[in-house]
């Protein structure tokens, strides 16, 4: 099934009770499928069609505040329109789960993959999971509800699917039995909720004398999410026999001299390249950031202290700085006594293919700068007019 159907099945198996959504390419087939489940009675949920993504998130916030498990899906401009209310969802400590089909921002107008939309939401207080396969999309939605609804976390989560590469491409996906999911994921039972006959004020004004304590608590929630992600994945593995690599998946990093770190579907291509280079005796490995929030700082430090070179391939760019993942990785490594050489590669924007050939050249470049030192810290890859990289 496609990544979008994997998302829809993930929400259905998790028994989402309220689904509010607005269509946007390439997300629409997720909520179309869910609307079908609701209309046929396969899913007992309230489907709320709204007039914008801002309203979709607002409706989820209201329903979640009333104690319902909610789900929505969006993409690109839809996600960025939600920005304000994303902050509300996390500040109100509502464990909403949403799929974002990651798509480039316009202009230039594009419907294809890059991570600019998701990366731009990194400060909203949402957990962010980048997926590599359609199976991972389905599994992560189920896990996300369990992680986010736990008492120590109580924050929302964004499941990130690469546009078209995952959203519209079919792969074999195992759909777990409903009874197994039910035993793994209990019904949502929040401590506080809106109740008729019990008037309470939610989200009221807090003066400077008390504001910081609430934000401190949200910080603790995100911090607790780190261990919770690992524990829930182990429980998931016991029930369903699958795991996806915690916060930072390491692929053939043992005895690797240089490692490429990236996120999303390109990691699958990069694993193939690692296999072929390893078969020729080249000691390379791949690290895949699965959780971008909370960021796997400790895991990066552990990896960084045992490799000579660490390249970071970002599928987005933060103007005036560098790739966002690269900045985070460097920040993690700065206080390590033993640090690798690092370099940032910007690739695959607006759906440009990141081919095995490109990744191989990136690996060769990391090896080179590890030996020789870096000439430029951030490099754009496969841009026509840049002779070094243009194929």
């Amino acid at each position: 099934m496609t990544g979008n159907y994997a998302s829809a099945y993930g929400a259905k198996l998790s028994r989402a009770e309220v689904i509010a959504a607005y269509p946007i390419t390439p997300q629409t087939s997720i909520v179309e499928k869910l609307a079908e489940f609701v209309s046929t009675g396969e899913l007992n949920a309230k489907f709320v069609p709204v007039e914008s993504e801002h309203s979709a998130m607002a409706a989820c916030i209201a329903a979640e505040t009333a104690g319902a498990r909610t789900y929505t899906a969006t993409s690109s401009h839809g996600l960025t329109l939600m920005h304000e209310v994303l902050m509300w969802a996390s500040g109100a400590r509502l464990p909403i789960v949403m799929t974002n089909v990651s798509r480039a921002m316009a202009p230039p107008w594009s419907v294809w993959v890059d991570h600019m939309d998701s990366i731009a939401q990194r400060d909203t207080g949402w957990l962010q999971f980048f997926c590599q396969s359609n199976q991972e999309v389905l599994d992560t939605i189920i896990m996300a509800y369990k992680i986010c609804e736990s008492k120590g976390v109580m924050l929302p989560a964004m499941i990130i699917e690469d546009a078209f590469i995952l959203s519209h491409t079919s792969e074999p996906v195992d759909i777990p039995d409903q009874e197994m999911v039910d035993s793994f994921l209990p019904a949502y039972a929040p401590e506080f909720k809106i109740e008729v006959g019990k008037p309470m004020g939610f989200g009221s004004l807090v003066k400077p004398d008390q504001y910081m304590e609430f934000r401190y608590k949200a910080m603790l929630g995100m911090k607790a999410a780190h261990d919770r992600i690992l524990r829930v994945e182990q429980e998931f593995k016991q029930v369903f026999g699958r795991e996806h690599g915690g916060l930072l998946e390491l692929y053939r990093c043992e005895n690797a001299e240089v490692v490429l770190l990236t996120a999303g579907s390109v990691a699958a291509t990069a694993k193939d390249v690692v296999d072929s280079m390893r078969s020729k005796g080249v000691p390379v490995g791949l690290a895949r950031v699965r959780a971008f929030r909370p960021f796997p700082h400790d895991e990066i430090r552990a990896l960084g202290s045992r490799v000579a070179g660490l390249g970071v391939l970002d599928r987005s760019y933060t103007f005036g700085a560098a790739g966002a993942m690269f900045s985070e990785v460097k920040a993690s490594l700065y206080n390590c006594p033993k640090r690798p050489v690092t370099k940032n590669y910007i690739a695959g924007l607006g759906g440009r293919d990141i081919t095995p050939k490109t990744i191989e050249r990136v690996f060769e470049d990391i090896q080179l700068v590890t030996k020789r030192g870096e000439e430029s810290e951030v490099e754009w890859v496969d841009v026509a007019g840049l002779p070094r990289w243009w194929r």
Partner: protein
Amino acid sequence: MTKSYEEIPLTPIADMPSTMNITGLWRVIRPVVDKKKCKKCTICWKFCPDAAIVLVEGVPEIDFRFCKGCGICSHECPSKCIVMVKEGSD
């Protein structure tokens, strides 16, 4: 007094509704209704942004616990029967 982060809930939740917060004290000018001129059109009631107008047999009665004196009722009244006067004057 500032409470420790351990003593507060996850997010600001008040165990009382927001109507317990009497906001009418913000007012510097107040609406005065000429009930004889009122045509019972209820436009003032519809426009009041804080639901601080109660209709008594179709005629507006201002709830001064919440009226902030914005003057929208006076501005919208087609029969000009609501005038704004300075607080403290008669």
